[in-house]
């Protein structure tokens, strides 16, 4: 008989709790300041100055916006399904936050002789988890649009659902080609391989392009922002929402953008590694901290690209969107996958 010993390693629990709060806090902070950045980038591209009244350079603008949203009247339409109406934005926010769990934000950090991994969960199916959670994200849109009991919201929700489902396929196919090279689904392994070898964007340029385009579509960002097409759909699936529930939807979009940017940096641009990192001769802790900075710089560059594209390209028409997804990206991703497989086979044999 072996006695079942349940020993809870409290330091482990505390460590993970701290890490989770830190990652959540940072995601929220970055999402908050992305709204500010978005408005600044939009203004600069249009030869304007952007918000500059609230605080120096308008840095308090997100706080003012958030405060305003909290104090707005909450309206639930009389014909709406109250439970689902509240569930919609909660789902959107939840799925947006969940993805950050598997992204390695940095290498090992040694604190007081104890190795602390800067990844909340190094699961061997990391990327699958992300795909699953992103797939769940469509429920936030769908439920919100359905519960509003408004034809525009419903139409936008249908658009959103079909768009996200269509673009998940090429995204997954592009990732499969990546896994053929890495041979692992764990994001930590993928980063470590890029640290020792080359960044995967050099091996998978087409895969990266497909992933980038799909990431735009998954985040409902321009040129794929049909679910929230302001002019045809009066604001889309969040048409009936007000106050902080609307804020949640808008916020979820920015968190998604941040997580997608972090994911793209991790999968294709070496994550927390940077070139010549191991030949600098620095202590592991310094390297880890520099690595975190490298990851965030890459992430911010991607967030900037998201915004830059938004203020450059007009929205696609719906049939163009579907055509691009099914007739261009999926075949391209398939060819990319086959070609990758062929090259790997050729090099082995």
């Amino acid at each position, binding site marked *: 008989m072996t006695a079942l010993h349940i020993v809870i390693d409290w330091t482990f629990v505390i460590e993970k709790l701290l890490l989770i709060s830190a990652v959540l806090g940072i995601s929220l902070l970055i999402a908050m300041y992305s709204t500010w950045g978005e408005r600044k*980038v939009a203004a*600069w*591209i*249009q*030869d*304007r*100055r952007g918000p*500059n009244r609230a605080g120096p350079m308008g840095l308090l603008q997100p706080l003012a916006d958030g405060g305003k949203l909290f104090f707005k009247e909450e309206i639930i339409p009389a014909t709406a399904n109250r439970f689902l109406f509240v569930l919609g934005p909660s789902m959107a926010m939840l799925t947006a936050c969940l993805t950050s769990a598997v992204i390695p934000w940095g290498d090992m950090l040694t604190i007081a002789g104890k190795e602390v991994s800067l990844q909340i969960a190094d699961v061997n199916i990391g990327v699958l988890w992300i795909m699953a959670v992103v797939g769940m994200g469509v429920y936030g849109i769908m439920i919100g649009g359905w519960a509003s009991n408004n034809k525009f919201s419903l139409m936008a929700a249908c658009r959103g659902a079909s768009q996200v489902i269509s673009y998940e396929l090429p995204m997954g196919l592009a990732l499969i080609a990546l896994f053929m090279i890495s041979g692992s689904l764990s994001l930590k392994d993928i980063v470590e391989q890029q640290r020792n070898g080359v960044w995967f964007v050099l091996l998978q340029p087409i895969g990266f392009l497909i992933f980038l385009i799909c990431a735009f579509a998954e985040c409902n960002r321009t040129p794929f922002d049909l679910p929230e097409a302001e002019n045809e759909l009066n604001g889309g699936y969040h048409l009936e929402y007000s106050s902080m529930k609307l804020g949640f939807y808008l916020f979820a979009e920015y968190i998604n953008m941040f997580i997608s940017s972090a994911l793209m940096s991790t999968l294709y641009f070496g994550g927390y590694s940077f070139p010549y990192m191991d030949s600098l001769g620095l202590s592991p802790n310094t390297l880890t901290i520099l690595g975190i900075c490298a990851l965030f710089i890459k992430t911010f560059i991607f967030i900037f690209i998201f915004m*830059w*594209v938004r*203020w*450059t*390209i007009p929205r696609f028409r719906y049939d163009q969107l579907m055509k691009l997804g099914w007739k261009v990206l999926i075949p391209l991703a398939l060819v990319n996958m086959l070609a990758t497989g062929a090259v790997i086979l050729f090099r082995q044999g």
Partner: protein
Amino acid sequence: MQTLTNRAKQVDRRPMTFMEKLYLPAILKGMGITLSHIFKKKATVNYPEEKRPFSPVFRGLHILNRDEEGRERCTACGLCAVACPAEAITMEAAERLPGEEHLYREEKYAARYEINMLRCIFCGFCEEACPKQAIYMSETFAPANYQRKGFIYGKEDLLIPDPKHPITVKK
């Protein structure tokens, strides 16, 4: 067909080439254009901190002037009111009493002088009509107000302060 300007461009209706169908080169070109705009000079003027200079002939809020000795120049002749196309000016004349020579330049002065800034069209005819160089248009404009009566400017609003006899102006 004769074009009106030389800016007209012939629309190219040839089918798109493969490079054009890729869209990406065109998108990158567009992104280059937007990126270049980030570094361009901004069109916006940061209003309360920096103000765009007015033209030298700008006609702003009226002022009632004084002469070198600080006496009011206006004699309430009413020519400005007659010249005013918007009928924004009203005044009441009064006779200067003995001992008030340091206040008013001539024997007659305006006891009440009002301009309704909501009626005024800032044409500057009053300035041109004035034979005594008493009314001028300055380089400011009427500030916002909560009530209409706040836009009826009396003597205390219009008269420039007396440099020799500073008196507290009651609003």
